[in-house]
């Protein structure tokens, strides 16, 4: 069972019911559950969307798109049915926040889905969990069944004339399905290959109908926005970044875990105070701030860095999924970079050639490099390959692979050079030996 952590600086909003048995519907009700959905049913779609806009809630999946604005793009009238799709495919390395939401507060996901449905006029919502999360899917399925039994889902939710149904759905292992268009393809029973945009899902989405797709953490935040009031939620965070974030701090820290901190919280403080500093009294070497696809940051770059979408963007990286991966000074960056690109090479679906070929060549080059067979020109070749992937693929997987690689090569060029000319890795670590170099 994943260990829960706590720190005095935390502002527990989304995680306020964690560890309190709220997966049981009666307990969830005792803790104020489903009041937000009822209120939204009374207030109507325009009120909901204006609250969401005022809350400055932005997409927790990584892109940080304003949630209220996203919902407002869905046409009021539509010949085809509209849908809500909750993205619980959580697969970005370094990210395990939705894991805890499904485990401890499944009804918050259901309630948020109902509210999204009311806002856009959908009668059906899907909650898609990655295949590995089977025990969490079972928790979600039980929660959905309990919500039906109470009349919170069905033909007449909360005794009204409004219908809203939820279907839970499992994936079967695919990182790329976390991309919204690939997610829809997967839910339609196909390979999770991305669709070209436009049209955007809000206009032509699932089964061709207008669809709102939100990350599970975003959806779980929605009832809290309604409960607290949009202004109070916005006030917790930083400018244009409302509320809190479930930051998953992993790697070389003393107290790894998922901590709920206000948007804009200082990254250095997050590592040294909240997570207890670097393990074993070592020094910080680098931080990957928002899941493995976000460019690495150096210790000097995190001094005054507030963790919100805008500030991390300005620092040349991304807030992404909020998965903070902390790397100490005993770590080989070439090995770390190789493990990162190996993942993207494994997950590339092969639909777009720059991504399929680019990730493969990057992995091959770095495998050779790390094994001590690199040449000086390989370093620039890595850069060249990565730069030619950026922006040239249907979905962001190509970018997700290229961006971190560029960061490693740019900021740790010296360490790459230290591997040249048959020199053994200065850190003498082993690495996934999938490609053996003769």
């Amino acid at each position, binding site marked *: 069972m*994943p260990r829960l952590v706590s720190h005095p600086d935390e502002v527990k909003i989304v995680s306020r019911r964690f560890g309190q048995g709220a997966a049981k519907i009666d307990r969830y009700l005792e803790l104020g559950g489903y009041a937000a959905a009822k209120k939204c049913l009374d207030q109507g779609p325009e009120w909901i969307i204006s609250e969401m806009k005022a809350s400055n809630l932005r997409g927790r999946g990584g892109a940080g798109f304003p949630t209220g604005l996203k919902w407002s793009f869905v046409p009021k009238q539509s010949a085809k049915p509209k849908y809500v799709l909750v993205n619980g495919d959580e697969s970005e390395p370094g990210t395990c926040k939705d894991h805890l939401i499904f485990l401890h507060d499944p009804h918050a996901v259901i309630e948020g889905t109902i509210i999204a449905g009311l806002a856009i006029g959908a009668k059906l919502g899907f909650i898609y969990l990655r295949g590995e999360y089977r025990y969490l899917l079972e928790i979600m399925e039980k929660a959905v069944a309990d919500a039906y039994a109470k009349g919170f889902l069905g033909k007449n939710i909360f005794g009204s004339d409004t219908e809203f149904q939820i279907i839970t759905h499992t994936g079967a292992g695919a*990182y790329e399905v976390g991309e919204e268009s690939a997610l829809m393809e997967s839910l339609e029973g196909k390979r999770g290959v991305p669709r070209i945009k436009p049209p955007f899902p809000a206009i032509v989405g699932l089964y061709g109908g207008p669809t709102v797709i939100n990350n599970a953490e975003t959806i779980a935040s929605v009832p809290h926005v309604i409960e607290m009031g949009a202004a109070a939620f916005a006030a917790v965070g930083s400018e244009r970044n409302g509320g809190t974030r479930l930051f998953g701090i992993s790697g070389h820290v003393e107290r790894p875990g998922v901590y709920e901190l206000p948007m804009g919280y200082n990254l250095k403080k997050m590592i040294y105070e909240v997570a207890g500093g670097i393990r074993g009294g070592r020094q910080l070497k680098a931080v990957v701030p928002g899941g493995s696809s976000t460019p690495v940051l150096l210790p000097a770059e995190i001094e005054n860095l507030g963790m919100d979408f805008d500030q991390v963007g300005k620092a040349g990286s991304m807030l992404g999924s909020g998965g903070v991966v902390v790397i100490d000074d005993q770590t080989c960056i070439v090995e*770390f970079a190789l493990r990162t690109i190996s993942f993207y090479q494994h997950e590339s679906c092969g639909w777009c050639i720059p991504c399929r070929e680019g990730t493969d060549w990057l992995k091959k080059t770095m495998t050779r490099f790390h094994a001590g067979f690199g040449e000086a020109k390989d370093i620039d070749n890595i850069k060249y390959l990565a730069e030619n992937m950026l922006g040239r693929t249907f979905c962001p997987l190509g970018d997700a692979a290229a961006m971190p690689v560029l960061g490693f090569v740019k900021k740790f060029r010296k360490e790459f050079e230290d591997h040249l000319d048959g020199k053994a890795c200065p850190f003498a670590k082993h690495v996934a030996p999938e490609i053996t170099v003769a």
Partner: protein
Amino acid sequence: MSPQNTSTETMTLFSPKLAARFDALVDKYPLRRSALVPMLLYAQDEIGYLSDAVIAEVAQRIGITELDVRNVATYYSMLRFKPMGQYNVQVCTNISCMLRGAYDLYERFQEELGIGPKGITPDGIFSLEEVECIGACCWGPAIQVNYDFHDELKPELVPGILAGYRGRTGVPSDGSLSLGWNAKAEGKVPHA
């Protein structure tokens, strides 16, 4: 593979419970084939892998071609086309777990089981593979044995984990080796 259950209206490879679940699943979605990926995974949980017969039955239940089913199935990394051990040990070696010693853990599993990557022990009880991120980054290094998570691991914990699973094995009477985790969790033997 011969159909094991001939008492129901249509012959099926699956247990009556799973067959009934599939009947409901295909009608649940706005489009029948939306049930495809979950059906393949649930079928694999019960049968152990996606055999030709499983693919044929799933295709027939949804009303698409076998080729179409294969085309989709090959995309998903959890779906497999040959049997694995009864307990499939999946060691995450992605960045967060790697930083906390996942490769040492993976090596220890290889030593204890005497098998390499994607290997199966001669008794068919265990198989081993290295997997990508399983969403337990803050509790790494982490593994999954079938669908069961084990987190905050150290190499010295490996023998105990394996002993725990070995103690739970009952070799099924029909000779099929891979039970789904659900079936095991419910303490059931495979359908006769």
